[in-house]
């Protein structure tokens, strides 16, 4: 039974589709005058952020509040962590406070896994980004955005992304977004191609369920979605490419390149964008760019994940049992009316 969401690779196709379908209903709540549901009333969720993040934290906080959970925000800066407290001590403090879920962002890959499997804490753990490892809710919101744009909002219900061709461009080496996306998109049946300078392609990529190319122009005409990644200067401790200008000439997306994409193809970016570096303002502001949609979809996806992991007495999402054995998230029986 999956109580935590640590990695996009843990999700089965059925689980992923269930999350996307649930998010579609959650998105409708955002269109209402009262954007609130009583679903997680009385539950406490801690946003445990050891690494700076405004976008993801606000997105989770909005999702938690729309589901009526009690929200505690914890940032490492200025907390006991800066005085030297360990993750274990922090976890045990939260456990003592009776926390139901921990949303954790940590600079170290594997920190959420440790938190979930160490026995320090009983709460559900949701990975909000760990080092260069995983960012599963980002992958889910990207898949959600693709399904809406490429399959359709209503037509997409119950569907995966079978046969869609997704290109992920840029700093694959440092990108948890790329890793999570490759895992999830593969589960959902999409074909993924990574495009990056050879120095920014991780060792062992040949074992990933995707293709690798060094030539963006060759891949673009065959793409249904092109995801541009931010060049993470803060993680770059060596010279991975000669100059920014050269990177941007070979791997940046400008209007001219965008014109080579099929007409229906979309441009995605997990944000924050560095305009002029990996993406030009012309592309970023075009109709085909889904950056703003991705932010809105992020709240719906996080509501869906929180509901499915915390809404009942046990999570609806599972990766250990086949779909046929899953507890009934079916229609109401008359006994329950």
């Amino acid at each position: 039974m999956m109580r935590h969401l640590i990695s996009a690779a843990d999700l089965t196709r059925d689980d992923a589709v269930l999350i996307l379908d649930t998010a579609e209903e959650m998105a409708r709540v955002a269109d209402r005058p009262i954007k609130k549901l009583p679903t997680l009333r009385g539950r406490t969720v801690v946003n445990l952020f050891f690494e700076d993040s405004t976008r993801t934290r606000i997105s989770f906080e909005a999702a938690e509040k729309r589901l009526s959970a009690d929200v505690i925000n914890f940032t490492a800066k200025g907390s006991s962590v800066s005085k030297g407290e360990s993750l274990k001590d922090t976890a045990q403090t939260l456990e003592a406070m009776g926390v139901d879920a921990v949303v954790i962002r940590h600079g170290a890959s594997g920190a959420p896994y440790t938190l979930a499997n160490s026995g320090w804490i009983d709460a559900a753990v949701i990975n909000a980004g760990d080092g260069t490892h995983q960012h599963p809710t980002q992958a889910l919101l990207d898949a959600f955005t693709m399904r809406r744009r490429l399959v359709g909002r209503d037509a997409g219900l119950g569907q995966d992304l079978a046969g869609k061709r997704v290109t992920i461009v840029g700093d694959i080496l440092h990108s948890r977004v790329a890793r999570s996306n490759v895992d999830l998109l593969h589960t959902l049946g999409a074909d993924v191609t990574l495009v990056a300078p050879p120095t920014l392609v991780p060792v062992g990529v040949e074992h990933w369920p995707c293709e690798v190319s060094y030539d963006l122009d060759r891949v673009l005409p065959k793409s249904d979605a092109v995801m541009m990644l931010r060049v993470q200067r803060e993680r770059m401790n060596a010279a991975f490419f000669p100059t920014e200008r050269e990177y941007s000439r070979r791997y940046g997306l400008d209007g001219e390149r965008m014109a080579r994409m099929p007409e229906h193809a979309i441009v995605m970016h997990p944000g924050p964008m560095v305009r002029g570096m990996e993406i030009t303002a012309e592309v970023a502001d075009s109709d085909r760019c889904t950056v703003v949609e991705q932010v809105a979809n992020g709240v719906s996806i996080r509501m869906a994940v929180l509901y499915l992991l915390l809404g009942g007495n046990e999570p609806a999402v599972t990766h250990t049992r086949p779909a046929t054995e899953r507890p009934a998230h079916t229609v109401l029986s008359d006994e329950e009316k």
Partner: protein
Amino acid sequence: MDTHDSGVARPVLEGPDIARVLTRIAHEIVERAKGAEDVVLLGIPTRGVFLAQRLAAKLEEITGRKIPVGSLDITMYRDDLRMHPPRALARTEIPGDGIDGRLVVLVDDVLFSGRTIRAALDALNDIGRPRAVQLAVLVDRGHRELPIRADYVGKNLPTSLRETVKVQLAEEDGRDAVLLGAKPTAPAGER
């Protein structure tokens, strides 16, 4: 829920009865709402939605006007969420003009404990402010746990708690019927 498969389930309403019952409810709605001018029908998924659509068609026949119909999923408003794993959400679809100032008729297949309707009233609260809310059900089987009653009842069906009531509709189950069966071996309190 699945007792009718065991063969002991006995039909108490068949297809033509259900059609007749819905016609009567439609006439009652027109009569009580004095023409059903501001009526909005909201079905509770799954079968309540089909019943609401059928009622809307009958109301249109009677009044000659198109009656707005939608669906209201109450899953996230249930008070027993923490007793079961979360269920997949069904569709909530509110007609374009909303429900503010309208007469909302909630439509469901079976009225039992009343908890679904309580949740539906909460859900309505978050969506708008109807002029009034009424309830139409195909079957009222009793055993209310809350002070809730239906305005329009297709059939009152006094049951024991050891029995199950199962509504089948052509849209979902391929036939129209209300089946009364014996609860298999489920211990009390399973609800």
